[in-house]
């Protein structure tokens, strides 16, 4: 039984070994895109804005950038990379011929995507520290578990999308219908209070909103309101996504 609990580890390790070979460009990619957004908008747009919620716009933007960077990393890993392994390279099929089960394979993918996205979160956190964009250093350490939960959430959801994708093009639907709206409505660029009431009510349900509700106060130096609720929401979305993913993938590969 103990063995059953860690059976996914060789799958995680396989992905880690591949990543290690390309770690430098991968880390750069993780960092460059969100950094450009944060610094470009933070300095460029921020220069035109008065303080947002009492802090410079760049400081305000940091938490959203962290959350969305983690989301992107987990999403890309569970869509494009996992799809390559599942559908194109037949890596999953090869593993299923060993004692490992589909659940082991997918747990390995889930935890790998979570780990990789945590690394994206850490990269942004380093910048936040370096530029002194935080209110209270001790509180920023709590961003690590927040990044972990956020990564877990979007890895679970991503695997569910992966399970029903006939090809790479299909992922555009998920980006257009889920990821982009979350970036625009979830509070990355402005406080949700700026939205009309009905739209803010919708946005409150989005997973990314929960992540930012946790991350933003932690960056700016206060303890988040309803922290447990937001954490449970992220956990719930991730677990629901994963259990759906497992059922759909079983139907796809093992019928």
């Amino acid at each position, binding site marked *: 039984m103990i*063995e059953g609990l860690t059976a996914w580890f060789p799958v995680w*390790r*396989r992905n880690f070994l591949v990543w290690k070979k390309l770690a430098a460009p991968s880390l750069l990619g993780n960092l460059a895109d969100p950094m450009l957004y944060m610094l470009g908008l933070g300095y460029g747009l921020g220069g035109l804005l008065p303080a947002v919620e009492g802090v410079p716009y760049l400081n305000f933007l940091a938490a959203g950038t962290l959350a969305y960077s983690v989301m992107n990393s987990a999403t890309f890993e569970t869509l494009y990379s996992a799809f390559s392994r599942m559908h194109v*390279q*037949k890596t999953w099929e*090869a593993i299923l*011929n*060993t*004692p490992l089960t589909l659940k082991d394979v997918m747990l390995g993918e889930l935890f790998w995507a979570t780990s990789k996205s945590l690394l994206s979160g850490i990269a942004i956190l380093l910048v936040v520290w370096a530029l002194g964009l935080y209110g209270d250093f001790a509180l920023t350490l709590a961003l690590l578990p927040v990044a972990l939960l956020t990564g877990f959430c979007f890895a679970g959801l991503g695997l569910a999308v992966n399970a029903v994708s006939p090809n790479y093009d299909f992922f555009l639907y998920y980006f257009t219908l889920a990821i982009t709206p979350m970036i625009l409505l979830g509070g990355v660029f402005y406080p949700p209070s700026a939205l009309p009431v009905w739209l803010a009510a919708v946005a409150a349900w989005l997973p990314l909103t929960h992540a930012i509700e946790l991350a933003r106060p932690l960056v700016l130096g206060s303890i988040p309101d309803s922290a447990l609720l937001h954490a449970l929401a992220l956990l719930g979305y991730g677990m629901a996504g994963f259990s759906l993913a497992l059922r759909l993938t079983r139907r796809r590969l093992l019928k």
Partner: protein
Amino acid sequence: MIPLKLTRLTKRYHGVAVVDGLDLELEAGRCHGLLGPNGAGKTTTLRLSLGLIEADGGAVELMGLPLPAQAAAARRRVGVVPQADSLDPDFTVRENLLTYGRYFGLTGREIAARIPALLAFAGLESKADSPISALSGGMKRRLTLARALVNDPELVFLDEPTTGLDPQARHLIWQGLRRLISQGKTLLLTTHFMDEAERLCDVISILDQGRVIVRGSPRELIAAHIEPHVVEVFGDALAEWTRCASAYCRRCEQAGETLFCYTDAPEAVVAELEQRPGLRYLHRPANLEDVFLKLTGRDLRD
């Protein structure tokens, strides 16, 4: 112990039985062939035998363990060479073996100790640190075979192991398989190449429409189901020959522009054909392919 025992196995897709009451029992230490036209249920039978899919009826026992309940434990003692290439393109030859061994719960040290013998078996010693993209098709197949041996399995499943290979590469794979047989491993091989099955297999089961229609050694099957000689006849004067051929041979079958004449006494047929200038012929002993075509028909199955 019986390495694999399938009893009254049934699997239906959309109401159609792809595997339909199939019985199969492997003998330890022998090479078994599973032949059948496309759609006969070979791949589904393999997937059921590994516990990857659940049967609608019947029972599977792999390495003495009931499936799917104990599939993972049973697969620990089994190797699989899948039909499609599934080597890890991001890894070198050595890393492929190392990573695959870990899926069996082996430690890095245990696998490292096995890798030299696996590389030697596959003839890939000089390629240990090459990326997969640097391997030829034959090398990839040999590596896939070596990968299937990383857990030192007692039973190895091979799903069309030589499809798409050139003759040199096929012969190398055959040598490898013969070595496994001599080591006492049990093999279950699916193939579309009758010469391959005839060369390697001790026991052959021919599948059609989801069940085993005949079983026996290649010689037994040929002796039991087909006349010992075949004369293939083709040429401009075929129509005329077709009308009178039954006087010279026991059974004739036309396929396109060729008439296959099956006979116990080829001399009479050949002597007669020599008299007919408009015809060419090929006289050969009957083989497994003749049996296969007789039992499963000449119609395309795709």
